[in-house]
């Protein structure tokens, strides 16, 4: 089992529904977020290209945050999901510094927080909140170890990229381009 998220940038309109759905699902305090939208504009008017995409923790197989965590609070569970055990987190912030995706933030209660791929929902057989709400259906979620899963098929058939490949983190969030 290797969970992955595939996001189709050709469909994403950058509406931020994923952000607010995550906030209400996971009680992320106002002013913080576990996922966010980025916009890249290239070219000169009128030859301009715009890319919108939803970003979050990449649940890296080679996760610098896990490696640098002094207490073991950051860890990888079944399916390759990177989680933080808040009780064990001392809020030192090393993981925040180490993350090439800037995916972690310090929760006002002191611990470090980030996307969990909605681990609690997966256990109930539900998709992550962001995936299930997206009005453009541009987000896909599934098991990369299953060659017939939607995510595997999309990565097989469509041109795609990952973010900051030079960091060598083996991320599990992919972008169709």
């Amino acid at each position, binding site marked *: 089992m290797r969970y992955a998220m595939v996001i189709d940038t050709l469909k994403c309109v950058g509406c931020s*529904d994923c952000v607010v759905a995550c906030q209400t699902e996971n009680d992320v305090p106002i002013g913080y977020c576990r996922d966010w939208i980025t916009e890249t504009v290239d070219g000169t008017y009128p030859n301009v290209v715009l890319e919108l995409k939803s970003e979050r923790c990449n649940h890296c197989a080679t996760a610098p945050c896990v490696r640098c965590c002094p207490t073991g609070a950051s860890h990888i569970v079944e399916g390759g999901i990177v989680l933080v055990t808040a009780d064990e987190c001392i809020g030192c912030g090393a993981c925040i510094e180490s993350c090439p995706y800037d995916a972690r933030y310090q*929760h006002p209660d002191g611990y470090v927080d980030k996307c969990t791929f909605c681990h609690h929902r997966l256990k109930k057989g539900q998709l992550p909140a962001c995936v*299930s709400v997206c009005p453009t259906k541009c987000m896909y979620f599934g098991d990369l170890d299953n060659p017939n899963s939607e995510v595997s098929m999309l990565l097989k058939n469509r041109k795609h990229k990952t973010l900051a490949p030079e960091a060598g983190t083996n991320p599990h969030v992919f972008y169709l381009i």
Partner: protein
Amino acid sequence: MTTSRRKFIKISALGLGGAFASTSAFSLFGNNSYLSEKTAQNIAKNLKKTATYCEVCFWKCAAWAYSDENNTIKKIIGNDNDPHCYGRLCPRGTGGVGMYADEDRLKTPLIRTTIDGEETFREASWDEALDLIASKFKNIKEKYGAESFALLKHGSPGKHLEHLFKAYGSDTIAEPAYAQCRGAREAGFNLTFGSWIGSPEPTDIRDTKCLVLIGSHIGENMHNSQVQEMSDAIDNKATIITVDPRLSTAASKSKYWLAIKPATDIALMLAWMNVIIKEEIYDKAYVEKYTTGFEELKKHVANFTPEWAYGITTIQPAEIRKTAREMAHAAPAVIIHPGRHVSWYGDDTQRARAMAILNGLLGSWGRRGGFYFKEKISVPKYPHPKYPHPKWDWSDIGEKFPLAQMGITTEVIKCAIPSKDNKYPVKALMVAGTNITKSIPNKKLLEKAMNELEFMVVLDTMPMDVTGYADVVLPECTYLERYDGIRSATNREPSIAVRVPAVKPKYDSKPGWWVAKQIGDRIGLSDYFRYSDYKEVIEWQLQKMGTSLDEMKKIGVKNFPRTSRPLYLEENEDYEFPTESGKIELYSKELENLGFDPMPVYTKHPEPPQGFYRLNYGRAPMHTFSRTANNPNLNDLKSENNLWVNPKVARIIGLKKGQSVWLKNQDGVTSTFSIKVRVTERIRWDSVYMVHGFGHDNKKLTRAFGKGINDTQMITKTMDDPIMGGTGMRGNFVTILTENPYKKQAI
């Protein structure tokens, strides 16, 4: 209470609200984010699920509101069976929790009073406020007739008050949704096909092969099912053609982005017609069978070549030809989208006509992938006595606009200004669910009109700017806290949805239906409100429709089979269009008889003088009008608007990214607040752009106050559509001030 010299009061003062402890919900799951998963599961089990439909915008998606035992809305999720949302709400629907939780909400009725020479509001009981309103209803009727009490409204609360007003004898009713928004397209398509577009639009986007968006920015406007279907169309490799001076989100998804010079759309469309007719790539059988006036049209557009249009639109002739052929190639599975907010230049009905004619030539009306025949189920009318017949109404007020199909807000407002020629004096006004100070341009005129009123009452959930002009402010509870009318809208298949209160109303807020009934009971109209709870009305209606409130509470949405006719035209079907000729009117005799151009012509519109830029405005996907700017969840996503400027412009003026600037328009109006610059290649050098709905004046909107510029404040020049009375708002030019224009006054 004072009624003269209506000064804007920033709702505050006199012990309003008190300190209401805002409960911090986010530590609900405890401190441990990992263990909290288990807690979350446990808590999730206890969440109550209530059927509702969203009121954050007009799309009215059916949803489930999840609330906990503390009477708090935790989340809102779309209803899977709803054709408006297919189980996926947009950010505003998901963020509806913030509309409920907003601690700045109106909390109690307020009455204008004067203390130490200062006008202010004081808290009042519902009884006192309603008694006062009822006395004004009686008073206005005696003095001037019921017609002089006008209603400006939007959304669900508006429906209940409309009933009250009609029972009272006034049909002086209007909503900005018509003349300041989609009215022109309704008129234009009605003239051509004999049918309104309506809402949701009957555009068959999911099955289209070619979607043409002319200034319509689906994806930034989150008209939910349309956004979803556009995404399906992208999956299906449909061609998208976007005509927009700005690289909108939709433009960025398009095979063709025609970066048109603003205000020249009609020229482009005439050239498209020219190509389609000249190259004989129109749907000949369809045009022959279903349309009238083709020969006249052919003659009319013969000279409007792409080369002619190039000089006007700046779109290369080759591009115009290529895109025309793409459309024809996809036909009839092609949609020239009618857009929604189309009150732009005063010739908007003609602009909509041009879109409609193109659809007629390409045979897309009544065809798969074009426009389907919409259908809705009618909700039985709850019995009440007949409405009295008013001596005059909205249609008399708008009489100089012969094809106005609804009340024209701006004309109703003008009637509040006394003059010898004013045959229809408006003396009192109720505003429900619409922030007219942000939706209606020309604030000076609006303020003058409001100043002349003898009485003004506003019903809203939030202390919107308009509340500051009222004599009485009534706090409405949000859609999550009330029963409401059954939602029945046109779609592929008819469906209904119910709204059931998920939680009790917060503070001392009340539902719109209750307010209407309370006023009705007080002015002798109890016969029109024969129920104690609106629940009884929908229970009665649902039973007549073969279902029940109990069933609807469980399913939220009920879909019904079509009964009117098939979704599309059958091959060679004999079909009579509901126009006067029974055909699609490429040439409009109706317009001709009224003295208007029977076919669209291009009119040159004023261009910005040197140093000025055309002010364009639009939507952000996470906000609705000016209504959501203070919503804690949505404000968190976007708390202010930005001024988009092309890098060339930034270089000339010396603007930097993030720099605060003020705007001054062609009439010398300076923006109250500043706006941060966004330097981007996504916009032309001759215009600037901002998202509508920011720059709030009322300090009681603690998050939204003073954030960004209110585009409507900069719109002082309007161009009326002579056909249906639309308010053209895109002809305003602004210059950019880098120095704070209020600095001197501060010294």
